[in-house]
């Protein structure tokens, strides 16, 4: 996770001239663009909530520089699998028509129900958005690695002993959607995605969602 954060931050610092040059040409931002494409300008903030079948979530963010924002929120699948997280959002590219940002995050997987899973989780997410006035098509791609700890308590004639073992769960997530800015501070989105949890096991089903964005873009 730390490696991911450092790598993403370094990438942002290695591309400052490009990012700054392009942002100079960019028109005033919409909250919708910030919400789905990431990389809000300094002083911008917002809340992004989305839901549908089979997932829902919310994410809040606030920009601390023109290229760096902090974010936090949660995602849930069927209200069984939860992942609260904190993230760093880093601007890579921002032109009049295109925005690309990277978002390493650190979270905690809590899966209740019959097959409980608990453990720290790191994710790297890329957010891409096109800007056609109020209409913002977007794509997000993410990969997630979770370490799961299993505790086994063995009761025997000699007493109890506890054994720990560790597993890893890999996930790949891709979302495609269309966002529309109703005002500079408010927008809506519709999208579909293909989250593959516990890859490469099982066959994933797609997800469909609607979302809203509220905030202030600078």
């Amino acid at each position, binding site marked *: 996770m730390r490696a991911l954060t450092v790598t993403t931050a370094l990438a942002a610092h290695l591309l400052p001239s490009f990012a700054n040059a392009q942002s100079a040409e960019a028109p005033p931002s919409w909250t919708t663009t910030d919400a789905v494409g990431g990389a809000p300008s300094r002083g911008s903030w917002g809340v992004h909530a989305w839901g549908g079948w*089979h*997932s829902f979530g919310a994410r809040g963010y606030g920009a601390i520089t023109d290229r760096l924002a902090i974010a936090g929120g949660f995602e849930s*699948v*069927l209200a*069984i*699998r939860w992942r609260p997280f904190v993230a760093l959002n880093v601007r890579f590219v921002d032109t009049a028509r295109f925005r690309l940002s990277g978002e390493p995050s650190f979270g905690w997987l809590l*899966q209740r*129900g*019959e*097959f409980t899973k608990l453990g720290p989780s790191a994710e790297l997410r890329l957010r891409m958005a096109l800007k056609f006035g109020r209409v913002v098509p977007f794509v997000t791609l993410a990969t997630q690695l979770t370490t799961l700890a299993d505790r086994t308590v063995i009761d025997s004639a000699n007493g109890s002993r506890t054994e720990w073992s560790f597993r890893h769960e890999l996930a790949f997530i891709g979302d495609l959607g269309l966002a529309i800015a109703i005002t500079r501070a408010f927008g809506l989105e519709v999208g579909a995605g293909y*989250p*593959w*949890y*516990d890859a490469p*096991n*099982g*066959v*994933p*089903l797609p997800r469909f969602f609607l979302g809203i964005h509220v905030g202030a873009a600078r």
Partner: protein
Amino acid sequence: MKGSGSRPRGRAQGIVALCSLATLWISSCFGAPLRGVEYDGTRVPVVDMHLHPGEWEDLPDRTQQFVGSRLPSPINLDPGPAAQGSISPEGILSEMDRGGVSQSVLFAVYAPRTVGITTNERILSDMSRSPQRFFGLASLRVDRWQTDQEQELARLRDALSRPGMIGIKLAHAHMHFRFDDPRYYPIYQLASDLQKPIYLHTGTSPFIGTSQERPYTDPAYFEAAIQQFPNAKFILGHLGYDFGRQQHDALETCVRLARSYPNVFLEPSALGSRGSDPTGRNLRAAMRAMKDAGLVDRIIYGSDGPQSPGFVRDYLQRTVAAMRAEGYTLDEARAVLSRNFARVFAVPEASL
């Protein structure tokens, strides 16, 4: 003239074809499901001799995890409701309809340390939901054999006296007793006396807690019992497949036993599933080996479903594809899919 005449005729044919397709689609949506599978242009009835009903809550944790892993994400996060939908009698009938299966056999299971328990009483209850389409195989507990043998045999005899209970299901590897252990021969004697075929799980198993050693999985260890009970019919399930390594292990032994003894039959279930044989090569090899050995009249079709939604249909399609690839004739396909079952279990042949 010719050209102008053929255009309306072609249009009319197109309309007729569209209407036929629409009728087929509407009847498949609202009418009775189409039974059987098409083979060489003829619809052939199908009996699936290997299905597992049950209660989700009765499955051991590890079996629940195994079943859950077969479901798509995120349904597998809460697999109970989805799995229960498949393993209830209504769910199984629905899966049979999806595959075109006319009749099926529901298995009782007493393997508390591996795959769990599905009682004879449960099977009888499920069978009563559709007596025309369900048969049952009864079973018994062997984990307290030293003390409960007589009681268990009496219970098995009672279950076998019920209408529709046409045979016995045993899984030595799941139930932890050796193929060559003579202490369990009274079970085979009972089968012989009552003329009820015995289905045997052969080969390894993906379930944790299974006895994977050869005396529990290799049907060669069962040869002495086959010899000793020539009037009992033994069905070698899974053809001794190694589910761990996803390859044949005792196929040759199964074929040899069937060629050597007229009371041995073969059932190629589960080994050809997408999970156990992704390319379908192993199922084709099995169908080819049995055909080449002249044993088509000994093969009884089974899937080992329902496992997950669509599995019953998928396994049937894979088996039919394997038979086509290996040159099974229509009569041979009919024998495998329903006729051999009727002969071995002495029940009327299934209809479409």
